[in-house]
């Protein structure tokens, strides 16, 4: 029983990482209207900026992470303006394929700058805490806390601020939003900054828990897609629920099924859920 609870707890942490990795991706999907495959590579960009400042330049981890998040946000904004803005009128399929190209360019640049081999942050080994027979490390707790904090702050931002409300209006009906006087370009830029910044935060978490290689970030794209599809369109809260469902299902499944099938479990959950609720968890259909 304790073992099963331990799997569930590990699943919560996995889910929280998936929430952080997916929430920016879903935001782009809602406001910009396409699946930004390069989102996963932005996690890598942030992770390696964190590594460069922390392990190479010798900065402490917190300022390294903050600079990485801000830098990633602006890199994302620049890519959005330079690459995606001019081709958006060609339709979501063209932008989607272009984002695959962007992912390859970012991966190639990272490979050229960083090179092969593994990289780790200059931080101590995780400390494990035990309670009720369950164990969790300090780094895992940081991932959970930041996922919760991100969920709450994003909700406040989208409900209480002018920019947040504009983003919500844009995601629901861009034409109507524009006709009601919302500055579409300004809102689009705010979205790029926000979604890339969230990728940056997930990247710092990646650097914190994982061993980095230039291809690890892109490996996360399938699970990000699984969570985003399960969440469906509409509210970002469904991303939080979807992330937890996929994370817990994958990790708890290891109790019965060999661990090699974890990715299969992620998609099995998505397929079963969509058979029952084709709109995804958010129950919202695009008008």
């Amino acid at each position: 029983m304790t073992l099963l609870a331990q799997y569930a707890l590990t699943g919560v942490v996995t889910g929280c990482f998936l929430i952080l990795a997916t929430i920016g991706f879903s935001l782009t999907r809602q406001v910009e209207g396409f699946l930004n495959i390069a989102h996963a590579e932005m996690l890598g960009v942030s992770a390696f900026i964190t590594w460069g400042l922390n392990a190479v330049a010798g900065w402490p981890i917190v300022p390294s992470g903050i600079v990485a998040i801000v830098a990633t946000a602006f890199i994302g904004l620049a890519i959005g303006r330079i690459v995606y803005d001019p081709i958006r009128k060609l339709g979501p399929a063209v932008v989607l394929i272009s984002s695959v190209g962007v992912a390859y360019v970012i991966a190639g640049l990272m490979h050229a700058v960083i090179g092969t081999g593994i990289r780790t942050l200059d931080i101590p080994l995780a400390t494990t805490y035990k309670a009720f027979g369950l164990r969790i490390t300090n780094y895992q707790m940081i991932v959970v806390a930041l996922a919760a904090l991100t969920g709450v702050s994003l909700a406040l931002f989208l409900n209480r601020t002018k920019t947040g409300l504009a983003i919500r209006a844009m995601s629901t009906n861009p034409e109507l939003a524009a006709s009601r006087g919302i500055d579409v370009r300004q809102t689009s830029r705010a979205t790029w900054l926000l979604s890339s910044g969230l990728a940056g935060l997930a990247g710092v978490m990646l650097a914190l828990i994982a061993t980095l290689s230039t291809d690890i970030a892109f490996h996360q794209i399938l699970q990000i897609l699984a969570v985003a599809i399960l969440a469906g369109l509409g509210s970002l809260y469904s991303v939080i629920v979807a992330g937890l469902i996929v994370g817990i299902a994958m990790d708890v499944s290891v109790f019965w099924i060999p661990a090699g099938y974890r990715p299969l479990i992620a998609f099995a959950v998505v397929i079963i859920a969509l058979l029952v609720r084709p709109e995804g968890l958010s129950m919202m259909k695009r008008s």
Partner: protein
Amino acid sequence: MKSTVSIKGVLLKSTLLAGALAVSTASARADVTIGVLVPLTGELGEFGKIVAGAVELGVAEVNAAGGTKCGNLRTVVADTGGNPEVGIREATKMIESEGAVAVVGPTSGVMVALVDLAKRTKTVIMSPYAGTITLNELGGDYVYRTVSSDLGDGAASGLWLTDQGYKRVAFMVQNEESTISPAQVARDKLETSGIELTDYVVYNPGQPSYQAELVSVLANEPDAIYLAGGQQSGVTVIKEATAGGFEGEWLFTADLAVPEVFDAVGAQYLNGRAYVEFADADSSLPEFKAFDALYQEKTGGEPGPFAANSFDMANLIALSLESAESCTGEGINSVIRDVADGGEAVSSFAAGKEAIGAGKDINLEGASGPLAFDASGTPAGAYSIQQAKDGKWENVKFYPASAFE
């Protein structure tokens, strides 16, 4: 040309006439071509250069000893860049335009791609470093290697885990054929030795964390964890298991036998309790020492990885030509197993040629170790175990090929 060669071969079977004929036909001999098909560029370029250099050294030694009864050896070299398509194209050119009777030096992927061509054109192909287990299925007829299979790593790991006297061992294995196959061999060894296998976890690489995979492994508190994985996944597994309270010992596979692991994990967590297993040449053998001395004399440098295995390929082919009835790939294929096993032990072409001339069976003891081929054309290998000590890997155990008999 082929018919005269085969008549010559038949005549040579008569041991009484052998010496006289070898002298009388010397002037009529043509050169025999061997293709050297290696990656000179790309990721494995450094290895390819070592292999080509060592084959050339072997060929020079053969020719210096008077060449084979089919003539002096001649090499044609081509670069594959490690690409199987390029490998097929260059090998075809070597066989059809240059008349190569053997093609040596391909890497794993190229070797597998060439199996069909080798059998169809009756040309021997041989690799000094292709460990892939695919060749365990495909090799054996026209397809040989002078290096052990990846499965041998599993046998060595199993032996070490047994020798260490662990009672309970957990396996963490990356989801790839090259790690699963040796792990399976190690697992079988443990099970026959009565060691309890607490967990056998096959995990996917590229994950940020392996906590879910480690839940049961850590709960069962094994004496040791056998970790067959790449550096990226391996380092995360080691760190998470250590943080999770694992206090037993480790056995890693060759990918983790690098100094970077100490920086990435922290040497204090590995020192004294982590070991690595990898294929290694038996440097204690007199054949290796002789090769080492020859290499240093001729090139002025130390022999690099697989140099001994490459030198052995040249000798194997030359001695096979010497004892075969025809100077063709078919001829080599028909006698190569006998040359490598069961007869008077010889360690150089000159000694082998003399013994064959005297009508004896020979057993070529290679610079890289015994070359006796199994059914798949693969010799048994030798393996080293190193221990983490003061942030470095240090030798603690060597398993010669004879340890697995």
